[in-house]
């Protein structure tokens, strides 16, 4: 049962109703969540002011879009409070929000009503350049409004025996990007360093570097190859900085203590994320069979906790694909029950210094869960409030994964105040 269905109206609350019910939640963030849930469609007028010389065009990404196309549309949006909204076009039949251009302003509308002003992402200077080898720099490093994103490898080895995560389309997306955009399978650390050097020439443009890729199970111990490769890339990147450490985040597999220690000691990396994806062991085993096979739920948690001793409190977190815990047929059937379960587990991690953040689950067309439905808006709002409250209760910061240094976690946006 979805939140709201137990009420007199017997339906989930819409955007306006959620704003009224949760006045403590900024309407900008509620809007961000709903835009992510429903997707967007750009009107002709909105696209008429989309200047590709100024603004960022959709490019290389780890995951595919909900329309399963790689069309050259705007990368994404930013709201007037500085909130980043990572979203992508959805088929018009699915009733997405509409980005329109009305009375000289770019706005987001729903059923003809203007809800807020928005802006496109500005293109960083390095997007216009190629490396010495002739590779477009934007194929090697992508940008968010304040973050540099390095995706060293676009393949996940959990898919080798079809045990990829069920909400994920990383491998299918990688195939599309390789053939349609010419994106490389694996990046050359020297080229990555070259692009970072170029990116840093734009003062004020970037606050953080994030590395994320699919898991690589190979090595003397599982994931040793993944760690070796990250170390190589991080050290190449590090050559660009005066200090050993630089604001950075690695979103990787749940590495063991030795591997974590190497990452921290041998590179400039300052924070670590390992996404557990779903905070329930049974569902983890079903939804993430590769992660379950190679690491396991309990060990994943243990490794996150060990990472706190190495990276320090406030520098380790885990991400969940919020809403996937409700996937049919084995997920929770009641959103109230699911919410409690997720928050209880998140608190258990927080006690040990590990923060939890979420992304809104978007059932991707080329994932196993393509025909599923994400949670109600109210669920995501309550989850954001709940996770933020847990972090405040345990005094756990997430500066490295906040509105500026990431921008994809509605709960993380609340940490601004």
């Amino acid at each position, binding site marked *: 049962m979805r939140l709201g269905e137990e009420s007199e109206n017997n339906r989930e609350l819409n955007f306006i109703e959620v704003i009224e019910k949760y006045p403590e939640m*900024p*309407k*900008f963030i509620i809007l961000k969540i709903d835009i992510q849930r429903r997707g967007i469609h750009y009107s002709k007028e909105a696209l008429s002011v989309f200047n590709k010389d100024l603004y960022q065009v959709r490019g290389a990404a780890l995951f595919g879009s909900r329309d399963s196309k790689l069309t050259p549309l705007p990368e994404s949006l*930013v709201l*007037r*409070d*500085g909130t980043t909204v990572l979203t992508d076009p959805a088929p018009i039949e699915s009733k997405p929000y509409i980005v329109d251009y009305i009375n000289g302003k770019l706005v987001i509308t729903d059923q003809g009503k203007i809800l807020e002003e928005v*802006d496109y*992402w*500005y293109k960083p200077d390095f997007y216009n350049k190629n490396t010495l080898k002739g590779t477009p720099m934007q194929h090697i490093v992508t940008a968010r*409004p*304040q973050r540099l994103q390095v995706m060293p490898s676009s393949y996940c080895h959990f898919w080798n025996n079809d045990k990829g995560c069920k909400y994920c389309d990383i491998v299918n997306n990688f195939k599309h990007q390789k053939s349609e955009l010419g994106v490389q399978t694996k990046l050359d650390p020297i080229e990555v360093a070259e692009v970072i050097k170029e990116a840093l020439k*734009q*003062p*004020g*443009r970037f606050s953080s570097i994030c590395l994320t890729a699919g898991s690589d199970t190979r090595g003397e111990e599982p994931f040793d190859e993944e760690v070796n490769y990250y170390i190589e890339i991080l050290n190449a990147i590090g050559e660009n900085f005066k200090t050993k450490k630089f604001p950075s985040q690695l979103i990787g597999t749940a590495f063991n203590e030795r591997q974590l220690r190497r990452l921290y000691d041998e590179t400039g990396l300052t924070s670590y994320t390992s996404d557990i994806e779903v905070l329930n062991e049974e569902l983890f085993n079903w939804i993430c069979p590769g992660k379950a096979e190679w690491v396991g739920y309990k060990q994943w948690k243990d490794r996150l906790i060990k990472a706190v001793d190495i990276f320090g409190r406030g520098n380790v977190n885990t991400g969940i694909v919020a809403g996937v815990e409700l996937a049919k047929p084995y997920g929770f059937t009641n959103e109230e029950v699911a919410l409690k379960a997720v928050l209880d587990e998140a608190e258990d991690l927080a006690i040990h210094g590990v923060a939890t953040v979420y992304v809104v689950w978007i059932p991707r067309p080329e994932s196993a869960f393509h025909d599923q439905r994400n949670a109600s808006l109210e669920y995501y709002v309550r989850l954001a409030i709940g996770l933020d409250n847990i972090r405040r209760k345990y005094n756990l910061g997430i500066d490295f994964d906040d*509105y*500026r240094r990431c921008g994809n976690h509605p709960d993380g946006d609340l940490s*601004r*105040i």
Partner: protein
Amino acid sequence: MIVDVSQELRDLINNAQAVKVLVVLSETGIPLAELKESVFFNEDANIEYLELLEGSQSYKNFTRSLWYDKKVSFLISGENGLSFQIIGKPIKILVSGPLYEKKYIGLREELGDVDLAAVCITEIEEIIDNSFNKKFEEQEKLKPIFKHLDRLAK
């Protein structure tokens, strides 16, 4: 809302010697004041201030004010008792984009190795001229009853 800004105030705000204070409400409703050097009118006749500290109370409170539709005020004061209170509504926070980068560069040229958290923009709703000379003249004229008797004694 478009509010007329006098040339006197424009000159004052651009004066490097002027004192500029931002007042925002805290989470518990307490007005908190902080000196802010970089406060200006922008080309839309809004007030722009540069927030240098990501973790400052003023930035958190300004963000909160934008989120929950609260007002903020600026006190701009200078020599000879010149003083203006500007009341407004936060409308925008820039943490990226060409204007933000321009301000970042300008700030560092002026102050050296500092950082810029955001460009915070307030739409002006009211300007109150609290300049002492003006206020005293008004009081003398409109409220003669406020005078001490000895001032009128022969």
